[in-house]
């Protein structure tokens, strides 16, 4: 896209949106948000960056192939379910631990891992489609 303003703002906007998407993902358990919404926000961020600077830049920026990201997400979600089996409770039962880091108690759970998996699948799958469409659409 030719607009100088858009090209200049896009990287900042993208970074902010990425950050926000992770924030939305992490707070999802107790307040509006979660992996699915977070993922969608991240995809929008990537789409903006792509429109401003071209698909190649986005591909370089995310380093991995989007489908690999989606695959990793599906893997993480499945592992989150399987951990429960190792702990001898039914598949997908949420497990929680509360380690303390510098005096702050941080709740971690398999549910968290699962939601991160959802986030990654959404980011990977949808951005992969959007990017491939964008890539050749501009020819």
């Amino acid at each position, binding site marked *: 896209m030719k607009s100088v303003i858009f090209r200049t703002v896009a990287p900042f906007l993208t970074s902010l949106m990425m950050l926000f998407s992770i924030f939305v993902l992490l707070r999802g*358990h107790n*307040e509006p948000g979660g992996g699915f919404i977070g993922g969608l926000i991240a995809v*929008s961020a990537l789409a903006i960056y792509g429109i401003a600077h071209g698909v190649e830049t986005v591909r370089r920026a995310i380093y991995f192939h989007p489908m690999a990201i*989606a695959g990793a997400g*599906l893997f993480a979600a499945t592992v989150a379910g399987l951990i429960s089996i190792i702990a001898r409770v039914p*598949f997908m039962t949420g497990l929680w631990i509360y380690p303390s880091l510098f005096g702050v108690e941080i709740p971690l759970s398999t549910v968290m891992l*699962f939601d991160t998996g959802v986030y990654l699948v959404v980011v990977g799958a949808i951005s992969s*489609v959007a990017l491939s*469409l964008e890539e050749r659409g501009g020819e």
Partner: protein
Amino acid sequence: MDVAALTFLALSLPFVAALVAPVLTRFLGHNAAWLLALVPVATFVHFLGFAPEIAAGEVVTGGYAWIPSFNVSFSWLIDGLSLTFALLISGIGTLIVLYSGGYLKGHPHQGRFLSFILMFMGSMQGLVLSDSFLMLFVFWELTSITSFLLIGFDHGREAARRAALQALVVTGGGGLSLLAGLLILWNVSGITQFSLLLSFGTELRESPFYLAALLLVLGGAFTKSAQFPFHFWLPNAMEAPTPVSAYLHSATMVKAGVYLLMRLNPVLGDTPEWQFLLPLFGAATLVSGAALAVRQTDLKLMLAYTTMASLGLLVLLTGLGSPHAVEAAALYLVAHALFKGALFMVAGIIDHETGSRDLTRLGGLRSAMPLTFAVALAAALSMGGLPPFFGFIAKEEIYEALSSFDRRSMVFAGLTVLGNALMFAVAFAIALKPFLGPKVETPRHAHEAPVLLWLGPAILALKGLSFALMSGLAHRVISSPMSSAIAGEPRTVVVSLVPHIGVPLILSAVTLLIGIVFYLNLDRLRAVMALILADIGWGPDRGFDQFIRGLLRFAVAITRRLQSGRLDVYMTVVFLLIAVVLLATPVRYGELPRAPFFAADVPAHELAIMAIAVAGLFAVVLAADRLTAIVSLGIQGFAVAVIFLLYGAPDLSFTQFMIETLSVVVLALVMTRLRLSPSDHRPLRQKLPDSMIALACGLGFGLFLLRATGAPFDATLTDFYNLYSKSIAHGANVVNVIIVDFRGTDTLGEIAVVMITGLAILSLVRLRAGSLKRGADRSAAEERV
């Protein structure tokens, strides 16, 4: 080991042997046959051990539970009928394995061939010994499949491939018919085992489903046993190597249909339908088979058509159902297996040693192949029904069965005499013409066959003689128990070589006379048959090709119609169906919503948002170009998202916002990618149907939602989640807790779907781009040239 375990072993041993046959053959060459023949010998000995019990009138059953919940078992039934078959299969099987060792000596795929033969043996063994319906069906289809493999063994030739496919289609299709028939029997009687069915009584015959069951079972039996008009696959199956023809297509597999009819005779037989259909088709097969046999000059084809005729005779006798007819069927079945197996193997020897099996190119072989000549003569004497061979005894009994003086018997007697006379002529044409007369030069220099080749037919021919000479023993062990099993009540066979002056002997003499006349005028007869067949022109064989071609054309037409490959057609069909389901269902069941309830005090900002949604909708419909329409779709979506927000669903609203944004982006991208024209230029006439479908869908969804929300709201689930979200799942956001915890497995499935969809879209995009690129490369290359 107990008897049950041993029987199970005997049933599975051929399959094990089939597994090791290729390896053994690699190490031992054709001599592996000697070792592999031990398997059928072992099963033969095992089943022979049952003979005293069976001869005493007992029935042995055994087995294991297979699917107990459906009352399906892996079980066997050994009575006179199945024992005779088991002994024939393993006995002749032994000889065939040996014969194959000699016949395919040095063939690169001899191991594979022996493996197929043993597999077939196991299937056939299982078929005749099956007690449970389902097991019978499984083995029935297995024989079809192994027969397919064996006929197509020489897969380099197109004729062999076609014959194999034809046999599979005909017999496999018949198998499905049989399955349907057996399921009806199962449903009517509630029984899944033959041993129980046989004592079920007459209820089956009186059931309204009797005719359907009978026709379906006959569909299976007639295709398998090559009854007219399903006979055409049998002569074509002669493309298979000769051991296969001798074993499958004369002695055993083609008799599976006859076996089934005999097995079911006590429960399905003795009705007007049975006594009409079976003799009718049997007689038609007998006469047409015998007549077609005369037409041929190829030894194997002549034998194939006489086999068809013999099968017709067996079906005819089974259908008549009188005591003598049943006994005659039992005797003739055994006699036929012996002499036809031997004659096929003789034909194979002649082919193998001289390089030709055309009757007109053979002659004077008696001095080169004396042993083969003797075997052929012995088998032909039995086939022609002359004493002192077993065939004579069988024929006496056949004529005894037909010698009552009502019109029906006389018609069938006449047809049988004609068929037998023709078969007599063919038998001696095969046994005499290649061996007598002046010596004819053959492609290969003829000499006597090696022991592996002549052993089998010689033993079979001798059996035909010894069974007749010791008819008392043969009847006690085989014929009487078998007849009893077919009839469903104790029978004793008494006929012997000593002829009684009576109608049967006269009929035999007449057959002999006509047969000799036919034999002497065989060439003239052949010419006449050729003329008749040329006049008819069309036959079931060509009909099969036409049927297959028609089927393909039909499938292509249907596929073209349903799978046009145009997205707009698919979309139209899908949405039309959605509209029909949404509108027709509530009308049909009176589930239309009552008039919607409008709240009087809607706040002004809510009304404004709704107005925006409606405005967006109009903007979509009225937009001048597609891009505007896509963006306007976003307006409407955002308005809905705001409404979600106002009604306390922030998660839903949030998601809706993101989805709307992304779909506008993706739709715009797709539009530019597909290079659509900026606006829709179609005339109103074409747009109207689409808009009607859209309106109908919208109306349907609207009604559906009104109806759904009109029902009183059940708050049980809401309360549950609100109550336990924090305490069980440690989360305050109920929506998210439901997604990742309460219904986490659902979500796992959903994200898998998201990923797979992404992959599918990606590959579609790549595919299209790739083909465009390749096309460009090609045109560039062409330019350079």
